[in-house]
């Protein structure tokens, strides 16, 4: 990793908004691949997460990291890159924070990571009831449904949502991934989801793997770098 790359990670870690944006722009102009840039920013975000865990950082800092991430995605060269790729979206995800919960920092980060990885995301926002998930899935026919939540009782709510998909006979039309700090393999099985993630990167990895499977049978595998 060269000096500038290291510096970029450092700026993200230290939440230097302006410096991150300036340096990102510079790196892109020098020819850095957008996905490489995102990897670097992501590494910085992971470090912010660690600093939050070690109590050096506050909630406002988590939010600052999210804002920086979002603005990097909105840089001209980034949007241009993703626009070119527009017809090559690798999959569609309907995403929302489940009823009763209005925490959305994690959901928004997951959404950003999905978009950066060429997914089309329909974000339903927070406190989304099961009927709305069902209706929007009928409307948008996504490959994947993503349910987010941090409150403990979202386990029950997530199960209710999966159940309503079962009851209406559409469960096998969509892969379901649930995400949140409190989820475990055992809880995921109880909910009836296909998989779960405690962090956004592994969530994206799972979704990409699913799409590889789905896309392989439907069209040629798209090289998403």
């Amino acid at each position: 990793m060269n000096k500038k790359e290291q510096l970029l990670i450092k700026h993200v870690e230290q939440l230097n908004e302006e410096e991150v944006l300036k340096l990102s722009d510079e790196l892109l102009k020098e020819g850095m691949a957008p996905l490489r840039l995102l990897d670097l920013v992501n590494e910085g975000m992971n470090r912010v997460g660690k600093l939050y865990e070690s109590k050096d950082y506050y909630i406002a800092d988590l939010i600052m990291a999210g804002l920086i991430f979002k603005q990097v995605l909105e840089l001209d060269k980034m949007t241009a890159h993703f626009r070119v790729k527009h017809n090559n979206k690798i999959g569609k995800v309907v995403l929302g924070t489940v009823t009763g919960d209005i925490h959305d920092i994690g959901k928004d980060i997951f959404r950003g990571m999905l978009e950066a990885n060429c997914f089309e995301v329909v974000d339903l926002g927070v406190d989304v009831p099961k009927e709305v998930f069902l209706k929007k899935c009928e409307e948008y026919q996504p490959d994947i449904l993503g349910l987010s939540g941090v409150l403990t009782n979202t386990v029950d709510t997530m199960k209710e949502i999966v159940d309503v998909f079962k009851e209406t006979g559409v469960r096998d039309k969509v892969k379901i991934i649930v995400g949140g700090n409190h989820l475990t393999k055992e809880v995921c099985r109880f909910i009836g989801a296909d998989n779960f993630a405690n962090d956004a990167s592994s969530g994206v990895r799972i979704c990409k793997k699913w799409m590889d499977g789905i896309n392989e049978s439907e069209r040629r595998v798209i090289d998403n770098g």
Partner: protein
Amino acid sequence: MNEVVIACQTLSDELELAMQETGCRFPVIWVESDYHNDPSQLRTKLQEEIDSQRNIDNILLAYGCCGNGLVGLRATGANLIAPRTEDCISMVLSQPGEKFERLKQTYFLTKGWMEGSKSIFVEYDRALKRYGEQRTKRLFDVMLKHYNYFMLIDTGAYNPADCLSKAEGLARNTGLKLVVAKGDIWFLKKLLTGPYDQDFCVIPKGESVNISHFGLVQKELSHQVL
């Protein structure tokens, strides 16, 4: 029977009043409020405290499930007893026998929440210092995007008038409305006196807390009476 209470500092006013009103003077181990910002660290801390108890029959936990912070705890040397409730907000706002529905668009305050060393007030002041006024506004707009109210819960354990001006200040700075609502300490009183019925998770010595104890999964498994 030898009892000890392990309690979150956030609930100190409420627990002290509950002790006064019930006449129970069990020893209390106070755990810093900060831990509730990180359920895994909370779990580790509570386990340390549980493991260091000697000659105790029942450890009473003045905690809710707290983002699964209690799930996974092992009852190593004594039975564990905890209110079967989501967190301390539902603990002081719920009514006996009624299903509690948390109000949406509302951030809850008690004196205990306001005094935490990482409270939303500390967050705000720290953000001002680190990011300046304009960025702080941006950050709090995102943080509280889905919120319209601050609700100061009058649990009876402190004088709400003492907290009003501070709460009003933050409400003004963040564009939220401050409301005051009545809360209760029946849950904490019952934690001290029993009976340990379906309102409680009772984990006999040797077993571990799992999510079913909080009635969040497989409700029928959830209670045993001591």
